[in-house]
């Protein structure tokens, strides 16, 4: 099963590296939004004590919406290219989901690696506990990837439009974003690891619950 998933993942990576559609749209979206935000809200225009709140919120807003411009396509492009039927025959649903999930995860982590340092520099985002921030970013990447992959699977069998994706994904992602922003703020302001822990725990349990539910739901949606 692991090998099948990795095969699916490899196929995704190869096709993506060939066309670079998702990477470029995600990257460009993130960059544009960052520039627009940074120009207006630059590092010195906000009070010292408000900065962690605003920075944490902005960071995750940019991350989520940039991701939304690239992640949903992961199933829709199969339907469009008419390769979906072949995929259904060739691989087990669990492997398909895992492969696509891993692809989305890598895409998100790549986005974070690109955006977060840039954000930090451009907005003068001071971080007290870098390790905690990295944990939050990792947990957030996994959580967002999990929810997005499942919702992407659902919309691919509906109209496949990205608007529908955002409409469906936002209510599910909102609680997670709340915790992620809280965790990022804690990582930025407190050097003590315990501060970010409650938020991290919440994000990880939400992610766990989503993954377990998706494991049960995906085969149903995929083979509809």
């Amino acid at each position, binding site marked *: 099963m692991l090998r099948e998933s990795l095969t699916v993942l490899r196929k995704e990576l190869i096709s993506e590296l060939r066309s670079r559609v998702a990477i470029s749209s995600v990257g460009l979206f993130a960059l544009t939004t960052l520039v627009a935000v940074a120009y207006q809200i630059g590092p010195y225009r906000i009070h010292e004590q408000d900065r962690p709140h605003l920075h944490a919120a902005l960071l995750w807003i940019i991350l989520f919406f940039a991701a939304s411009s690239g992640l949903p396509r992961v199933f829709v492009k199969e339907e469009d290219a008419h390769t979906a039927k072949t995929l259904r025959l060739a691989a087990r649903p669990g492997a398909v989901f895992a492969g696509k999930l891993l692809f989305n995860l890598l895409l998100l982590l790549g986005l974070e690696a690109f955006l977060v340092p840039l954000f930090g520099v451009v907005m003068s985002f001071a971080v007290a506990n870098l390790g905690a921030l990295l944990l939050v970013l990792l947990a957030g990447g996994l959580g967002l990837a999990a929810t997005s992959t499942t919702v992407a699977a659902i919309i691919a*069998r*509906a109209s496949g439009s990205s608007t529908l994706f955002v409409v469906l994904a936002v209510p599910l992602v909102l609680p997670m974003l709340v915790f992620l922003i809280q965790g990022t703020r804690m990582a930025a302001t407190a050097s003590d690891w315990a501060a970010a822990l409650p938020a991290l725990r919440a994000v990880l349990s939400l992610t766990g*619950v989503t993954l377990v539910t998706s494991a049960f739901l995906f085969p149903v949606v995929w083979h509809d």
Partner: protein
Amino acid sequence: MTKTKKLLLAALCVWFCLVIWGAFFYAPRAAGFKGESARIVFFHVPQAWVAVVAFCVNLVASLQYLRRRDLKDDVRAAASARLGLLFSVLATISGSLFAKVMWGSFWNWDPREVSIAILLLIYAAYFALRQAVADPERRGTLAAAYAILAFVTMPFLVFVVPRIYWSLHPDTIINVQGKIQMDSRMFQVLMGSVLGFTGLFWWLYSLETRLARLRLHRDQRGE
């Protein structure tokens, strides 16, 4: 209409009138709240309660649809979702009115308020999804999948967030020691109202499902 049904409906009508009288005259003024504003709780809490009940009915119907692929289950899911949306909107409105009187603003970003807002977003998304699918069976499957996914994320909002964050909502009635802190008269009226609203929900739900089943029957006959 059968005699039992007529009796039940008449009882529901009278019951509600009793509850309304009780809410305004039998229950005493609540201490610590502005004027008579606390009386709205006799309507606000049951509305929120019914919204949750509707959500649960939707969950059960969705799960059953995925198991048996009977379109009648999808009918039940859609009906309960529609009613859930209605009562969520009512709960939001009554909550906002209370907030305006009590704290001066209609919306305060209190975690409980946020969870009802997200519930509204979930319903909106659910119906958007249903609209986007033409085939009735696929519509049922996708809607059910989304409803189940949404259902598992909700407890975090409703239970976890208020524990972590300070909340404007008055302390949950059953507090840490497990004792009921509300005045007994108020409690009676509140429970009476919850019963009444649940009865109303059941009636509306049966009306909705009967209407939908009629349509289904007609469509199937027309083929």
